[in-house]
């Protein structure tokens, strides 16, 4: 029995990684949920929007590094993030003008917009592969650890080390700032309120003189900011690869739906629900249980519920369970 070591091991391998991953998913799901609330369709290009934003950020990072600019102990990518957001926002506004606006005017069925977003997904995926290729790209620089595992062991004298990576802390802080800004914007500013009004009741909002094109444009800009931030944080934490970002679509949609499509709070909650279940179910619990159980009962297997390759199955199973028992999600979202 050694609960202290068990807690440290649990935090190191489960809680902290899941917290970071959950924050990344939450930011992604917020983008999906906003588009769903305002534009009323499921945007399949969202994963590739994240990839696109991250690509621009990486290119700007390289540019900054080439000029000799650095952010000290923090990754340079954080300085490049505004450029990434700007580029993505311009691109999204362009796709809205050239592509989505036409279907909005026609009042096309949501499912048509979903298929259109599939086309946009292809184009964005092609552009990203075209510009930056399909390889794994690591672009995190600066200090890697705030506390590294050995220092922690020396400090506390515990058997288990606790490593706190810079990227984890950056993810949590940035995500908290982004969410705080978003909620302040939605709840306190006039534009934010008009967005919520438009989302709740389009006709009534139009009747009271809200300009729909302005609401839509601002939505895209916010989505660009959220998607780019989510993509950059994920890339800093792990690495950037076009295909991985496309695959993030599934957990992100699962988060948004589990929380209730159209509900921002739901998206955040959903992100953490999905992240924690994915990490906990694919983690090999041998070590933690070894510290917790009396020696005679120590498990000899890995005590891993499922291999890590099945992480999609976890988000999927949670999605199905929530849909069957509470079809509008945890925080009553909208339904079309």
């Amino acid at each position, binding site marked *: 029995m050694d609960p202290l070591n068990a807690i440290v091991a649990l935090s190191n391998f489960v809680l902290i990684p899941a917290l970071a991953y959950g924050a990344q998913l939450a930011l992604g799901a917020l983008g999906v949920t906003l588009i769903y609330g305002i534009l009323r369709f499921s945007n399949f290009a969202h994963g590739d929007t994240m990839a696109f934003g991250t690509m621009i950020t990486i290119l700007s990072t390289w540019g900054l590094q080439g000029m000799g600019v650095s952010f000290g102990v923090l990754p340079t990518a954080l300085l490049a993030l505004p450029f990434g957001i700007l580029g993505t926002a311009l691109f999204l506004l362009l796709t809205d003008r050239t592509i989505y606006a036409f279907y909005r005017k026609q009042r096309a069925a949501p499912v048509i917009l979903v298929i259109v977003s599939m086309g946009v997904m*292809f184009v964005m995926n092609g552009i990203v592969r075209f510009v930056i290729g399909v390889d794994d790209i690591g672009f995190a620089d600066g200090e890697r650890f705030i506390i590294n595992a050995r220092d922690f062991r020396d400090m506390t004298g515990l058997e288990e080390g606790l490593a706190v990576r810079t990227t984890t802390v950056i993810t949590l802080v940035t995500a908290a700032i982004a969410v705080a800004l978003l909620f302040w914007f939605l709840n306190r500013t006039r534009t934010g309120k008009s967005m919520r009004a438009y989302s709740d009741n389009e006709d009534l909002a139009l009747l009271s003189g809200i300009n729909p094109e302005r609401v839509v444009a601002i939505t895209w800009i916010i989505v660009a900011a959220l998607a780019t931030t989510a993509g950059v944080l994920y890339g800093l934490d792990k690495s950037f690869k076009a295909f991985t970002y496309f695959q993030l679509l599934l957990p992100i949609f699962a988060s948004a739906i589990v929380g209730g499509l159209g509900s921002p709070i739901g998206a955040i909650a959903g992100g953490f629900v999905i992240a924690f279940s994915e990490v906990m179910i694919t983690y090999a619990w041998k070590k933690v249980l070894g510290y917790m159980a009396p020696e005679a009962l120590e498990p000899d297997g890995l005590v891993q519920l499922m291999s890590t390759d099945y992480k999609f199955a976890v988000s999927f199973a949670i999605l199905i369970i929530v849909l069957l028992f509470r079809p509008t999600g945890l925080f009553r979202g909208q339904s079309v």
Partner: protein
Amino acid sequence: MTRGLILYALMALLLLVTGLTQGWSVTFTILNYGLVSAIMALGVNLQWGFAGLFNIGVMGFVALGGLAAVLTSVPPVAEAWSAGGARLIGALALGAAIIAGPIALWRRLPKGKSSGLILLAYLLAGFFLYRWVFDGAVERVEAVNPASTGYLGGLGLPIIFAWPLGGVLAAGAAWAIGKTALGLRSDYLAIATLGIAEIIIAVLKNEDWLARGVKNVAGLPRPVPYEVDLQQDPVFLERAASWGIDAITASSLTVKLAYAGLFVVVLAVLLILAQLALASPWGRMMRAIRDNEVAAEAMGKDVTRRHLQVFILGSAVIGIAGAMMTTLDGQLTPGTYQPLRYTFLVWVMVIVGGSGNNFGSVLGGLLIWWLWVMVEPMGLWLMDVITSGMSEGSWLRGHLQDAAAHMRLLTMGVVLLLVLRFSPRGLLPER
């Protein structure tokens, strides 16, 4: 009608030009995969065009067809069966029983928090019991000669039987998905199918006892003769000589033509069935449901049941195509299944061809597959032209030429967006 004939003639001309400029071997390869793609598009059209069901898990059903090809054609590995086959089958049956338990119990248990907890405890205990039986069996099976087998093998039947079996496997998966997700909203079905496709691929990649996972199963038997055998057959050599082409080219062309013949037969049968279904009262009912669900329900049509029916049928067609494709490949490589290629490309085929029109889907399948293959050489050529003025070995030149390979996705996206914008009903619109 005339429009269709003209477009099909143009497609034939396109293949003819490809044959004359790039060689017939390449052209028949394109045609064969095009025919398989056309069948996949037909399946998606059944679901989307007839009934408005948004299935983006095509990849999963294609992969199940591929699995069927292995399970049917490969000879059984007797050693693996005796090592752990029975225990493995027992474990799977146990797993099914554990899952079936609560479904049967759920309605009888009194409502309340405690019954939920009991259920959870039951499932958890059941899971560990299942894993204990299952893991032991898997370990034994995978230990049997892992370099060449390490799996249970198949039935050792001719591979042609895999095609219907692929349809059956896909239909079974479709039933399970449809039962849970079809009552829900359309975009939930989309996400559910997307998820199940990823899970099917994950299973194929990881469960080595089933089809060797990422170690792949290569050298599947063929429904057509091997080139080498043809080249040693005096009758064939004589015929090749009389055609005036050398034996190696002749044998390769013969094999590809034989595949094309088989595929055309399957495509024709499915197309006729789909056309009959479309014109029948059942087809009219499906379209009525698609166009106005509420009205159809008011007329006494069981919408959810009909949706389930057409979802299963469409998925079965996709499964058949998947088995045919693996047969043509001669190997199952789970690592190569990618949603952009197997799900979204098929969707481009259906939309471009004309959703709701079977002939349109077939045309879309052939045309878009041709484009998918040809975009790469075209992109390379384009890049060569663009970069011809640049200095040899410049960074941009190298990058542009490498990037030409990624032109495919961009082109497909642009084609899809253009068709949706300017001709949303596709090349051959539904009447």
